[in-house]
């Protein structure tokens, strides 16, 4: 009985101390921007890349997963499990995260695409509010989820007709990329913002593994492992895409 009483007292004290040590928190708005020459991407408008090819992007959607901030002591704060950014739907380009500890963070971590576990869930296993929902148009039976879907057309022969392809449907577990970016971020009380900026031109021309959109084999992919050229383009695109992000 005595023991029980002391346990109760201890638990009460513990409870009180847990309450008094409550951390200060703040809101953090995540923005997902896509830029071309420092201007926001406008779907269906005409762009000229550094090789003077003209192109238009009509659809552009991608998944980012496990977005987290890393504190100076290397502990992590997870911001979200999964987002699907769609440049046809402005509401998907911002996300407000509540209850972020007021402190300094040194790094941002995220995955491009879906983790194997996320990729394994069927559209009918997830809630309607999940970005993988039935109508996301980001799922094929044989591939599972499409991590990045970019669809457009190009004019690579100066004919003024946009009659060449620009289609990159990239998916499969092997092409999931994790990205870590050093970023000094002081979360202060009130509202804070963090911007994931994607430079479109960098996907195609980064000086290391350029994608030549005038080459038919590199102008499209749907990540078909049975077709080596098709899959090679997917590998290249996935790599370039994950490196085209900067955090602002």
């Amino acid at each position, binding site marked *: 009985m005595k023991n029980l009483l002391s346990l109760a007292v201890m638990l009460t004290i513990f409870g009180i101390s847990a309450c008094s040590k409550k951390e200060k928190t703040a809101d953090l708005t995540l923005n997902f921007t896509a830029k071309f020459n420092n201007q926001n991407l406008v779907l*269906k408008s005409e762009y000229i890349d550094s090789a003077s090819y003209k192109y238009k992007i009509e659809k552009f959607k991608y998944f980012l997963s496990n977005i987290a901030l890393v504190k100076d002591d290397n502990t992590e704060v997870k911001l979200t499990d999964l987002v699907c950014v769609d440049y046809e739907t402005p509401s998907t380009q911002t996300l407000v995260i509540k209850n972020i500890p007021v402190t300094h963070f040194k790094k941002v971590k995220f995955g491009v695409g879906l983790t194997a576990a996320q990729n394994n869930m069927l559209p009918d296993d997830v809630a309607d509010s999940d970005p993988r929902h039935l*109508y996301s148009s980001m799922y094929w039976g044989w591939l599972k989820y499409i991590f990045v879907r970019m669809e457009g*057309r190009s004019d690579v022969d100066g004919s003024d007709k946009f009659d060449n*392809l620009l289609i990159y449907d990239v998916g499969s577990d092997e092409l999931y990329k994790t990205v870590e970016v050093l970023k000094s971020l002081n979360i202060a009380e009130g509202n804070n913002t963090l911007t994931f900026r994607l430079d479109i031109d960098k996907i195609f021309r980064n000086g290391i593994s350029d994608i030549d959109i005038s080459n038919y084999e590199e102008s499209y992919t749907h990540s078909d492992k049975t077709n080596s050229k098709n899959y090679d383009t997917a590998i290249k695109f996935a790599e370039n895409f994950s490196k085209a992000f900067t955090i602002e």
Partner: protein
Amino acid sequence: MKLKIEKLLSSLVKVSLATVLLFLLGIAGCKPDKNIEPDPNSNDPDSLYVGTPYSLQRPSPSNRFRRFPDSTFTVEGIRLGRMLFWDPIVSADSTLSCGSCHKPEFAFSDEGKQFSMNLSGPTKRNTPSLQNSIWMRQLFWDGRQPSLEAASHDALLDEQHFNAAQAVSKIEKRTDYVPLFKKAFGRPGTITEDKIFRAIGMFMRTMISTNSNYDKSLRGLYTLSDAEQRGLAIFSTEKGDCFHCHTDGPYLTFTNNEFLNNALDSAATLADVKDIGLGKVTGSTDDYGKFKVPSVRNLSYTYPYMRDGRFETLEQVVNFYSDSLRYSPNISPNMKKINQGGLHLTAQEKSDLIAFLKTLDDASFVSDTAFSNPFK
């Protein structure tokens, strides 16, 4: 001895407690089932009558997709919807029903007619199939309606000069309908426009086709022939690249539910596009010439093809996509090699592709008596 008596008493108390509990449980179990009682024909306004829940009985298209979208179904609602679907009472002159143009034996399309008919004559659209519309959003070729209820209302208004007040008053005079509305929607059993379309919507959501040879092959109940297998490879790779739009995605609907310009007609500028489709709905010139991607299920029953029924045979459709694509500024990016007219499949590839497409025919769907005219 005292101890023994105490033990006996204690077990007696336990037994009686258990008995009381079981008794109470029993009473609770006897509580009237609100799905059956109270009598829907009584006029008790406090009725909690909700109808008999209906669960979809169609086979899953494959072993992967087992759950159907959440929908509110009742056996009574579907029964009423089936009657209203087939009853010409809903049209202005009581001559046309939904089933007049959406015939089950043609997968709910219109028996090979190029254009859908309304009371004034032919329209400029081919009657679309109603199959698997439980999974559809944005109905009609131009996507002008967001739900099956709104779409069936639109179709009745446009094609059968539907007048809500007139239809309600005609139905009210039919003694057979009044109890059916009560059974479907509870008391007081008033007949309203909203209930008419909710019932038709319930019935339409049961039109699920997931039992083709291809579906059976996914469940291990059918083996694709060599030609069908080769056709599947053409369909689902860059070779034919059909799968981008007629995607096997969630629930194997074979449509991505998007609106695209499929290169049927050429136009130098968007202003030259004559049949503007989605553009009429959104008001955006970017959408001129874009139309809903239809499913490629049950093609043997849904001829002719395309929004204007311009192709009578599957051979014509495959020849068009293979060899005769026409440029316009907003054609779908997935129309490959547009400057060469298409991907130029060989005669063998074309026939293999058609062999595969025919594995998506669902004979059990088009002969299902659950959809047939209940007045015959």
